[in-house]
């Protein structure tokens, strides 16, 4: 699948638009617009997953990131109405920019310097069934831990946002 010309063109088009949307998240001066560009980035990343023949993960990405997490972010912005929405930077903007550039340079160098031992394997068939088997055979303990983590996070979020007269803080 990844060898077809249309898929190759799709990869580069999606990759370019994803990177552009990610840069717009940093560039726009309104936090709500930044969330909208972040949703576009998440959808673009889901497209990259499809090109990499990860169909189940792509669907999960659209459901959880583009659906749930973006709604959570929008809720958080709307629940902080008096806060600054200018999407501005702190004094650490310059060091962060330099650090990001250095890290990108290092990663690009390492990526081209390493022998990745690729042997031209074909794409996966449908991955959902195999993923389910992996979750319930070798990864059963992490799977259960993840469910406990989700419950704990949900209870924690409810406790943190609950309105009470005598708060713990």
């Amino acid at each position: 699948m990844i060898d077809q010309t249309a898929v190759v063109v799709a990869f580069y088009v999606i990759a370019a638009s994803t990177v552009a949307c990610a840069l717009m998240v940093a560039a726009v001066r309104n936090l709500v617009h930044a969330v909208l560009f972040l949703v576009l980035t998440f959808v673009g990343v889901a497209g990259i997953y499809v090109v990499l023949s990860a169909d189940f993960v792509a669907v999960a990405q659209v459901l959880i990131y583009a659906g749930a997490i973006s709604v959570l972010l929008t809720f958080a912005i709307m629940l902080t109405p008096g806060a600054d929405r200018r999407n501005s930077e702190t004094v650490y903007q310059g060091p962060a920019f330099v650090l990001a550039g250095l890290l990108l340079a290092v990663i690009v160098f390492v990526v081209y310097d390493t022998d990745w031992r690729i042997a031209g394997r074909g794409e996966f068939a449908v991955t959902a069934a195999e993923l389910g088997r992996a979750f319930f055979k070798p990864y059963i303990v992490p799977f259960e831990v993840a469910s406990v983590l989700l419950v704990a996070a949900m209870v924690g979020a409810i406790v943190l946002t609950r309105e009470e007269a005598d708060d713990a803080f």
Partner: protein
Amino acid sequence: MPSDRVLATVPLEHVLILGAILFVVGLYLALGKRNAIGVLMGIELMLNAVNVTLLGFSRFVVSPRPLDGQVFAVFIITVAAAEAAVALALAVAIYRHRETVNLDEIDLLRW
């Protein structure tokens, strides 16, 4: 599907560099933004970049269990969802007490 039959193909390096660019943009957001929700957006972007890298390795590198990368990606998505819920609840709780979510104004523990 042998890859020497066709001319055009996506090399693993380009997938990794895409992941690196997304990670770096997320790092810049997480370190440089003033609003706590902006910082959280950067963290989500970094987790997405790691997922791109994992799926790239899972797709290209030959291993006895090739789907492990996708399993890790699903776990990362799970943890990211939990982290986003807790972090946004924290932001809302801080806003309720201090009327701001600007990280340079939340400096109670700073010396």
